[in-house]
């Protein structure tokens, strides 16, 4: 069998999934359903970026919504006041968010465990207060309104379908770039740090530098998601980036399972879908939401797809075949037979 066909066959599940995603708008005619799918996309990127920290490096960040918010505000401001076009504003938002990630990571990564966690929480609270109080720049609690719709090189994005393809592109790019990153030295170094920082350092892994890089990267992806959110909903206010949002991201990650690239997407999809499906139960629907999480923690503590490596292998890029395995997350108790 020629290699070409063999690669094609090996990639078949991915190709089928992507093809399904591409024709999805033709199947889903209901605009509301499409909107839900778009939100799943936004949260998938956010949870994937959080996964980089919590799942791969083992840093427990609980203030991730801060970077999401920075991205949203930066993108809106760049487009409305600096007059940049959308692709530039979105990348700018990612870079600004990454810059803040660096500023936060540099002093705080010397902290470890609970102290680092508290610092990320504090950062989120401070950002919320700044957005809330800096009237002249962020328009405070009144929020920024009428954020322009994006257009990418002449492609005017106005309809839900257009937004769907944009977020699909972003999710695929996120998955692809993360997959590549985690496969190279960088990703292996992160895993080594998570499993045992001392041992990793003894092997020549510069732990502090890799941790900072992971932090900056995670902030970048979150900033991109924030930028999309701002131009999609077209109205942002500080409420959307409060610590509750960070906790929702954490819940999605815990539910889906961390340490691989599939779990976060599944977690985001479930926790967006559950409250939507049960929306007509009115005030009781949050009970369903809570019970899903409780049941998960009782039955499968590592998350639905946690503790295992799932291949997102693109054979074209990975010529060498190797079996990869990841030891269980060290924060979780060993699974009992």
């Amino acid at each position, binding site marked *: 069998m020629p290699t070409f066909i063999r690669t094609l066959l090996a990639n078949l599940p991915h190709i089928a999934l992507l093809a399904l995603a591409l024709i999805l708008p033709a199947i889903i005619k209901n605009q*509301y359903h499409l909107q839900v799918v778009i939100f799943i996309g936004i949260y998938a990127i956010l949870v994937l970026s959080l996964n980089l920290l919590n799942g791969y490096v083992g840093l427990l960040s609980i203030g991730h919504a801060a970077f999401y918010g920075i991205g949203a505000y930066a993108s809106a401001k760049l487009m409305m006041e600096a007059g940049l076009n959308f692709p530039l504003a979105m990348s700018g938002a990612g870079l600004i968010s990454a810059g803040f990630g660096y500023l936060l990571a540099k002093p705080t990564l010397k902290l470890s465990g609970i102290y680092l966690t508290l610092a990320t929480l504090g950062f989120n609270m401070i950002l919320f207060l700044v957005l*809330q109080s800096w009237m002249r720049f962020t328009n405070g*609690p*009144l929020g920024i309104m009428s954020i322009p719709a994006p257009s990418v090189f002449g492609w005017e994005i106005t309809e839900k379908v257009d937004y769907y393809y944009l977020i699909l592109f972003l999710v695929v790019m996120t998955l692809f770039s993360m997959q590549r990153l985690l496969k190279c030295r960088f990703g292996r170094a992160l895993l080594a740090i998570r499993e045992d920082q001392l041992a990793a350092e003894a092997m020549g892994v510069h732990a502090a530098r890799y941790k900072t890089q992971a932090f900056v990267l995670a902030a970048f992806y979150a900033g991109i998601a924030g930028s999309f959110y701002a131009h999609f909903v077209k109205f942002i*206010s500080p409420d959307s980036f409060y610590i509750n949002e960070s906790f929702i991201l954490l819940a999605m990650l815990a539910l889906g399972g961390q340490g691989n690239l599939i779990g976060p997407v599944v977690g985001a999809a479930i926790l967006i879908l559950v409250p939507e499906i049960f929306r*007509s139960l009115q005030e009781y629907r*949050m009970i*369903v939401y809570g019970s899903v999480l409780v049941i998960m923690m*009782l039955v499968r503590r590592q998350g639905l797809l946690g503790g295992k490596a799932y291949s997102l292998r693109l054979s074209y890029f990975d010529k060498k075949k190797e079996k990869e395995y990841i030891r269980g997350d060290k924060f979780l108790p060993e699974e009992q037979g």
Partner: protein
Amino acid sequence: MFKRLVLCSSFLFLALLLVVSATPSANAADTIKIGLSAPLTGDWAEYGNDFKRSVTMVFDAANKAGGIDGKQLELVILDSRGDPKESVLIAEKFVANPDIIAEIGDFSSSSCMAAAPVYEKANMVQLSPTSSHMDFTKKGKNMFRVVTTQGIEGPFNARWAVKDLGKKRIATVYINNDWGVDANKYFVEEAEKLGAEILTQEAFVPGEKDFTAILTKIKRLKPDLVYLPAFYADAAAILNQAKRMHFKTTVMAPGSLFSEKTIELGGQAVEGILVAANYFSTDPRPAAQAFNKAYQAAYGKKPNMFAALAYDAAGLMVAALKVPGVDSRAKVRPALEGLKGYNGATGSISYANGHDPQKELLKITIKDGKWVVYNR
């Protein structure tokens, strides 16, 4: 074994809920469907449930009286959690359902404004009882509100304070959210125009518990009057702390403070505060009295301002639907605009000159631990 049991039973439970929630409603042809988007859970659950109670009550009454042209009204209630993102999803859901011809809600301005473009695009009326953000009704031609904006309430209070009471040295303490910022701004603008001196404008973050720093500063400035755009929990805390500091002055506030809770939490400290209210439970106007009676009969408790505003929103909606020929989304807006002098529990409402109602406000105060009409 235990795990499997938990898993099985929970799946069964979820499946059951799914069936319950997906049960189709009555025959669509004989009903007119109206959506209600309100925060039934989360921080504002109390107000969202006020909405639900009032609107359900009005629709039930209209249905008992024969419905509209023999058609029954059906309310589709969805929970927004007070989250702008959720209210957008609800808007999409309502708009995607061709049977729903208009919407009531949401509670907070940010939720309403995030959802507004969706309703505007579908040409569907969005009637918010409480959204007070000045720009809400500018988001499109389908946005209506029942509450008076701070653009009206603020200047009204400023005239009361400066012209009627002759207060010239004024300090303000306001809650730093979308509502508080506007409430403070419009009061200050008018008061300055009338020649009062604004000594300081102090914002506090929602959830703040210790106000001594702000109060010490204000006490030193010796104002004649403190204007307090806040909600009752914060206002009661501020005034209690002021009392402990032996800081006494005239206090004025927007209608947000009209609640039994203000007295319950504030006690002696809130005596004599001046409030311009949208709605007042012992308001002698017949429409307000009718609402009080109906609400107490249905739910056995006293209504508050939010319940009254939602009651009027539902009443306005029913009145608009009763206009002959109103059977589709596009026709609800002209019908609402055509209502002249609708007599609601919160005053007379008409949308002919814009979608922000101009209502007369009631001057009330607290005397001997009771809300009473203010008279000099």
